[in-house]
């Protein structure tokens, strides 16, 4: 039977998205903690809450946006559906429903990883140890992709898994950079100062982009080159450009399946995303970094809706 249930395609798509989201959340928490250790002294955790539109939910449970509270809120808090614990649980539930379509190793690793995350208590989450903890979370997510990539059969399940991966990755990269925007751009006179350089540096490292960046720009460290590299370098695997290319490639692969031969899928958002991915760093800064990132995020939302509609047949689901 070659046709694939929409529900299974959706589960594969979201499995990838949730793991990717968890990994990037760990990166964001880590990079923000790193900012906190710079010369500026005080750290600001509000941007993270703003970024996820979580201010209200957070205020319902905690008194102030103080570092430990925010970190606990995003790692172990059961009441926060965007906490790493809840994200990995959601990933596992999606994997469970397609357990018969994925490899045994993929399921087993995710299961073990979830049990570890679920076992973390509030006391395990300390600022002094945050970097190591985020490192382990990142590693668990990366192990998942490694096993999935090495074992999943290359059929529709795989295509949807990869679509989920790159849609989420693209979105998360915009958020990671946006954090930096919130932290710095309002005080434009700091740009280029030692503090600023240290923070761009931290951002590059948090995106695993530092060494790649140094090979391309051995001497420079400016907002344009750093943002340009992370967002628009097609060889950097987390860049918008790279993700947009991969999204296009996997959609083409998907439509190449015989059972999808009659399906047409060319939403305007796909071309719009490709167009945004082709901008130059100078154009982006000229247009406004934050505004540009907004545009990318909006196109991703539209693309997600188009996938929902065409492949997951969302229109038939009960309201």
């Amino acid at each position, binding site marked *: *039977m070659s*046709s*694939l*249930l*929409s*529900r299974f*395609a959706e589960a594969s798509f979201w499995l990838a998205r949730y793991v990717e989201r968890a990994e990037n959340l760990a990166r964001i928490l880590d990079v923000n903690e790193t900012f906190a250790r710079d010369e500026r002294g005080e750290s600001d955790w509000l941007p993270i809450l703003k970024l996820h539109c979580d201010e209200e939910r957070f205020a319902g449970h905690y008194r102030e946006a103080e570092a430990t509270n925010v970190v606990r809120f995003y790692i172990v808090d059961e009441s926060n559906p965007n906490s790493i614990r809840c994200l990995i649980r959601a990933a596992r539930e999606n994997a*469970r*429903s397609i*357990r*018969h379509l994925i490899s045994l190793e993929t399921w087993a690793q995710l299961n073990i990883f979830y049990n570890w995350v679920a076992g973390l208590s509030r006391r395990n989450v300390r600022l002094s140890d945050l970097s190591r903890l985020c490192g382990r979370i990142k590693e668990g997510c990366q192990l998942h992709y490694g096993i999935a990539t090495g074992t999943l059969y290359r059929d*529709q399940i795989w295509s*949807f898994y990869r679509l989920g991966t790159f849609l989420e990755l693209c979105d998360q990269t915009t958020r990671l950079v946006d954090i930096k925007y919130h932290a710095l751009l309002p005080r434009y006179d700091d740009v280029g100062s030692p503090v600023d350089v240290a923070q761009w540096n931290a951002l590059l490292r948090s995106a695993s982009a530092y060494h790649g960046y140094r090979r391309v720009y051995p001497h420079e460290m400016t907002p344009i080159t750093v943002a340009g590299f992370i967002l628009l370098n097609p060889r950097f695997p987390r860049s918008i450009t790279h993700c947009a290319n991969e999204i296009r490639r996997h959609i083409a692969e*998907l439509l190449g399946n015989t*059972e*999808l031969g*009659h*399906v047409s899928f060319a939403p305007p958002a796909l071309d719009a995303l490709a167009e945004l991915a082709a901008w130059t760093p100078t154009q982006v800064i000229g247009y406004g970094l934050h505004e540009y990132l907004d545009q990318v995020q909006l196109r991703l939302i539209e693309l997600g809706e188009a996938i929902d509609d065409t*492949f*997951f*047949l969302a229109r*038939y*689901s009960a309201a």
Partner: protein
Amino acid sequence: MRPPASELFAHYDSGGFYCEMFGPPGSEPLPHTAPIRSRLARLRPSTLTRRARATDRELFNLGITFTVYSDRNAIDRVLPFDVIPRVISAADWRTIESGCIQRVTAINRFIHDVYHEQKIIRDGIVPAELVLGNANYRPEMQGLDLPFGTYVSIAGIDIVRDTDGTYRVLEDNARTPSGVSYVVENRHLMLRAFPDLADRIGIRQVSNYGMKLRDGLAEIAPAGVDQPRIVLLSPGVFNSAYFEHVFLAREMGVPLVEGRDLIVDGGLVQMKTTGGLKQVDVIYRRIDDDFLDPLRFNPESMLGVRGLFEVYREGRVMLANAVGTGVADDKALYAYMPRIIRYYMDEDAILDNVETHLCREPEGLAYTLAHMEELVVKPVGESGGYGVVVGPRATSEEIAEARQRIEANPANYISQPMVGLSVSPTLVDGGIEPRHVDLRPYVITGRQSWVLPGGLTRVALRRGSLVVNSSQGGGTKDTWVLE
């Protein structure tokens, strides 16, 4: 050289019950089990134990488990597997096979009659209130014609064996009998763990069940559908039999769907796929009637498909089993099964019931009241053992109370003698002891009926226990039907 003495069975004593390996108490051992006995006897108990542990591990690793829920945690448990097979001779199997086919044929004719003219009621064979007052009677089914009159596509007939070796039907499962996945998996497991034991014995194969089931389901497809799309409808991952649903969908090569994957669109049942909606022709549903269609049955159901029943009534989708088959696997109706067989087929039942006295009939009532101390008394309307009085184990007060209840409302009671279930040698703590077993053969019916040569042998692992249910310390054995 003589083979070493049979250490394994040296101290085995079937305890006065019929033994599936050795036969009736006091007789010569059954000839058809001789080659298996001699091969087993060559194994040391420690070897047997070691290989048994390996099979347990394999079951767990393969995820052949059922799920037990406690609070928030779902625990996957292995259904205990006993490595000593239960063997059935070719001659015995012919009886079981023809008896099961006869029974399923009669059940199908009975259900057809119930949902059409109800002749059996008008002829006074079965009391009207037993049928029409049954909670599983579905008036919505009245007048609906099904291909080949097949209502029960998959049946599981629970059979026990008396002390004298007679096979008797204990229960007919005509709704959604489960357990067949264990029949097939147990065989695979056995052949891997004991290739030497099964070699050249001549055991009939069970691995084609999926193919046969698919064929049977394809036969009942709506008229004019050439290559029907078949799906298996499951309540989902949280159902304790989910492993079996996955297994059967795989064996048949059909999609495993849940209610939310199906919709009714354009008067047809459609499946949501990445390539758009695809028409579904036959649904092997593993959910109860009540949950099938919130529009028609339980409106709270989240498991079903809105509007499914209307499409079914119009004959544009088929369900296996049909809606309303529960009217035939009721405990009260069971007592009438020999008469139902005679009525529709003009034959005596090949497989006996457990002798049942109907207190609604004067002779049955008189016999029951005169033999309360020997009989098991059951209220017909209850399930799960509620209200059952086991004469030989009851106090005189309990018997007196039961007598009053029966006299007040005789129609609500039946009585049966206690059945001494047959035993089978079973590996326990390094030794071999008799344990009680039953048997559930599976019957697939499309155009005609076919019985899987094998079946689920459940074994009560607790010494002396007659309860074979997995929830109460039961396990399973591989069932070998000889050629």
